[in-house]
């Protein structure tokens, strides 16, 4: 049986979700953002929420997320996505409202908005891409940068006496009464991608429940191979060896 015999519509088992459009993404080759975009598009498509989903895109590499997934989007000021999501969800309670933020957006300039939106128990989903670096602006040190990790603003490694420690913001969120579902996932292997998809699905299902029970927070430990100055393959390896020690994968809270 040749390749041409197999490549037929009836034999299709996997393809890009149609909600993810054909525009070529501006992300670097091997960037985790692409996989997470794909998962969000897949989950929204499977849940049939194309007309009900509203995403809030951040400032950072994912600032153009609205170009790639064909749902309603709103761009927020740097770090303010959870505040905007709060407003949208309160005005349109039947919609699926989610924010999509990086670590510079969510854990640095937007710490207050993130913590307070989760503490208020807003019925929103926060998707948090943690690559421990400011990817878009040239790989500067972020609050989530690991101790000893080299970035363009700490070329000799993060020094705890000068710069303090990495900020595990997901652990802080898990302490809050208002947070309902807090999980940390990754997308470096096919199995990890499947688990991340289940987590995103669960978070979206939580947010669509009519009774307000709390915020859902999904952290995806990601790579930034350009910022880390590694090949995509080496970046995944480095992530499993170093990032997972500081950011262990698994559910932190599931109510």
């Amino acid at each position: 049986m040749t390749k041409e015999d197999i490549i037929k519509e009836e034999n299709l088992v996997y393809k890009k979700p149609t909600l993810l459009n054909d525009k070529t993404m501006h992300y670097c080759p091997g960037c985790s953002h692409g996989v997470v975009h794909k998962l969000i598009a897949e989950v929204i498509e499977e849940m049939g929420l194309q007309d009900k989903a509203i995403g809030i895109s951040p400032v950072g590499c994912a600032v153009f997320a609205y170009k790639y997934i064909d749902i309603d989007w709103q761009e927020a000021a740097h770090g303010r996505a959870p505040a905007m999501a709060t407003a949208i969800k309160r005005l349109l309670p039947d919609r699926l409202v989610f924010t999509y933020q990086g670590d510079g957006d969510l854990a640095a300039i937007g710490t207050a908005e993130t913590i307070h939106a989760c503490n208020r128990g807003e019925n929103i989903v926060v998707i948090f891409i943690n690559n421990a670096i400011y990817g878009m602006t040239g790989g500067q040190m972020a609050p989530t940068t690991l101790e000893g990790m080299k970035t363009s603003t700490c070329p000799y490694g993060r020094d705890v006496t000068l710069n303090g420690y990495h900020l595990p913001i997901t652990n802080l969120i898990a302490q809050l009464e208002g947070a309902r579902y807090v999980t940390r996932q990754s997308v470096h292997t096919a199995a990890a991608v499947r688990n991340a998809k289940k987590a995103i699905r669960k978070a979206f299902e939580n947010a669509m429940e009519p009774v307000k029970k709390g915020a859902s927070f999904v952290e995806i430990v990601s790579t930034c191979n350009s910022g880390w100055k590694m090949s995509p393959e080496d970046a995944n390896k480095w992530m499993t060896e170093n990032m997972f020690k500081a950011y262990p994968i698994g559910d932190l809270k599931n109510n």
Partner: protein
Amino acid sequence: MAKFKGAVEVNKDRCKGCNLCVVACPLKVLELSKQVNAKGYRYAQMANEDACIGCASCGIVCPDGCISVYKVTLN
């Protein structure tokens, strides 16, 4: 003999040659091409067509959604 036979179709123009699908494939079906696409990236292609079982690991890890996977069950 494998019970399933698969085939992978790569959108050459969309592929950025990140090599993650090549690493993810458990049966070493894929490789990066010698030629480059319009953007100058070496794109993924099937090097060992007979080994593919259509597990879709390559498609699942692809950050750019370039890969479609097809699968047939053999009698």
